[in-house]
């Protein structure tokens, strides 16, 4: 049973948690410290995705604040939408929002999602996320750093 003792002594190797941010809203599921997130890529350059994978990696570890990625909007409390909304992804995005049980939260991640970013005048672009579905929380940055994303998620999980 030596390994259990080892785990207890070492603990988890993560960055020190910053002080808790100001809550942006009540936790959608009604429980503090639990946010099941479905990630939707509406037309991103994948810069935000790289940062998000760092957020849920061992160093930043967003799961210790209760945020967790799930595989279907049916399981989710919130959507994490990255990228500018392209024509092809507009309907799937609307369908995904409709498929997420209420009360739900839509988090727009990255400058493209907030205001079309560098893809402003591209031919395939329909608009920013807020022009297609209602957005509750915004994370600015191109791309936003993992710290920014974690802070936004913590403002929703309340932990």
């Amino acid at each position, binding site marked *: 049973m030596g390994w259990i003792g080892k785990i207890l002594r070492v603990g988890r190797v993560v960055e020190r948690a910053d002080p808790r941010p100001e809550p942006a809203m009540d936790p959608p599921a009604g429980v503090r410290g639990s946010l099941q997130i479905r990630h939707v890529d509406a037309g991103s350059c994948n810069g935000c995705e790289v940062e998000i994978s760092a957020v849920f990696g061992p160093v930043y570890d967003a799961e210790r604040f209760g945020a967790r990625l799930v595989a*279907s*909007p*049916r399981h989710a409390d919130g959507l994490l939408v990255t990228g500018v909304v392209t024509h092809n992804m507009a*309907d*799937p*995005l609307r*369908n995904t929002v*409709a*498929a997420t049980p*209420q009360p739900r939260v839509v988090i727009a991640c990255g400058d493209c999602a907030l205001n079309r970013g560098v893809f402003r005048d591209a031919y395939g672009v329909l608009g920013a996320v807020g022009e297609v579905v209602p957005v509750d929380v915004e994370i600015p940055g191109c791309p936003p750093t993992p710290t920014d994303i974690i802070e936004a998620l913590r403002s929703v999980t309340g932990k």
Partner: protein
Amino acid sequence: MTAALTTAPATAPNTVHGNGFGSATAGIVTSCLGAAGVWVGLLAMFATVRPLHIGWLVPLSGVYLALDPLGGFFLALTGGVAIPVGLYAIGYARREQLGRIPLAVLPVFVAAMLLVPAAGSVTTFLVAWELMALASLILVLAEHTRSEVRSAGLMYAVMTQLGFVAILIGLMVLSAAGGADRFAALGPVPDGARMAVFALTVAGFGSKAGLVPLHAWLPRAHPEAPSPVSALMSAAMVNLGIYGIVRFDLQILGPGPRWWGLVLLVIGGVSAVYGVLQATVATDLKRLLAYSTTENMGLITMALGAATLFADAGAHAPATIAMAAAMLHLVAHAAFKSLGFLAAGSVLAATGLRDLDRLGGLARKMPATTLLFGLAALGAAGLPLGAGFASEWLLIQSLIHAASTHDTLVALTVPLAVGAVALTTGLGVAAMVKAFGIGFLARPRSVGAADAREAPGTMLAGMTIAAAGCVMLAVAPMVAGPVLQRVLAGLPAANLVGFSDFGAVIRLPGLSGSVSPGLIAAGLAAAVVSAVVLARWRSRQRPKPVALPLWACGADDLTPRMQYTATSFAEPLQRVFDDVLRPDTDIEVTHLAESRYMAEAITYRAEIADAVEQRTYPPVIRAVTAAAGLVRRAHTGSVHLYLAYGGLGVLIVLVVSR
């Protein structure tokens, strides 16, 4: 064979117009015969029935009918299957436009099946057996205009007649060695004759019961026959193969040396595992049910073999339990398999489809049939609340408890047998989940399935009777308790320890272990009711429900092509048991002319044939063909030569019998 070929063409003109009166008459007569069979069978078990001798009916020996509890049991079982099938046949014949000849032969077939267990002498038994075989052959060929039906009929005819030859020789040896025609008067049989009779009867009756490797007719004939006939054949006729083994090898010659038990155990185990494997990968609904019959007959044969082996090893309590398991499973199998085939027939009549890959969505269109097939599938899966649970539990218990006897052979075989039964039951669940889930739930995969309509009243009534039997066996198997006691008392392997504690709680005789299917059912029902009530109560506090389209991964809608099919459901199992099933798959990629990296078309073909049949039958058929070629040299077509043969034959007979 000749009878079938000469009578079959006459049905063609009759199929044009409906035959309402004929179907009603045939159905009612069939059901009445069944009811009479049940009544006489029960009388034979709990009272005494006087033997009946009709001297003028068959030359030389006459017809002799005598019933003991064992015969009565099989008589009642056959009759019990015939009652729902008769009712069902009324509606089925109208809807499917069955011809006059199949309708006329249906009651004859039931009567012949009722005669087999009632026969009290070897001659009567053989006559009834052959009558049953011929009647069933005519019924299999009811839709003889299709070539698959003709090929299935030919296969069935050859195998049933070869089986009959084996039985004929075996019983003639028995009769000659025992010095009597009547079963009750048979004297002791010398060892050599006993072995020969065992080998011949197990081969003959085993082919009727669909045991591997003589099962090949079953998955061909059962799907091609009209569904009421499939139900009769699969739920009643194959039982009579088991009856033959029990009557001649375990009762008259019984209990038998231990290698008999071992032979039955091995044949049964191989049949059970092979049958259920083929059932899990079958995509034809009726073929799946037919292989499931092989599986269940295998389980029953295993139980018979185990009883013989344990009785010989001195473990009398496990022997009794194994025999009880065999008899109870016969009843359970008759109930759920007749229901299964009848429900499959409703599906076939409503959609014209047997292919599971093209069915689906029937739960909305045919709710009653779906529920009834669900009951049958639950029974065949051998889970609690299913008809087959109590008997499979008894079989496993007998095998587990026998492992503690200090006998090397038993200690070696029993763990393997437990493994075979466990594998069979597990795969059986997969097969039945596939049949029910793919065939009846989800969305229709073809136009035929989408346009299905519910079966007419008489068909539903017939199926409801069979379903009532299933539910009764699942919840209250104690109704079969007195019957089992009477039958087991007459079998040498099982009459040393009585199975007396077969009530609401089944307690194993002389061993620790008990189960109560009724209590399990009651507990589950209570749990379901309380869960529903709690959910209702809590739903008041929740927001109002919203109707939303199904989640289709962001796309617009789901299509039936996105669903699991029977083939894809069974694919992992097919991969695991690749060496046994030997699937024949072929992928053909056509490339574009410009580049090898672009595909123009991909063709995928997969087929699972019966590996045992493909391996073992062609050599036999080749040998027979070669022998026929040799014999043909003597048949030159010259009348003079044939006359000479005749004269020579008469001369030899005269010299020999001088």
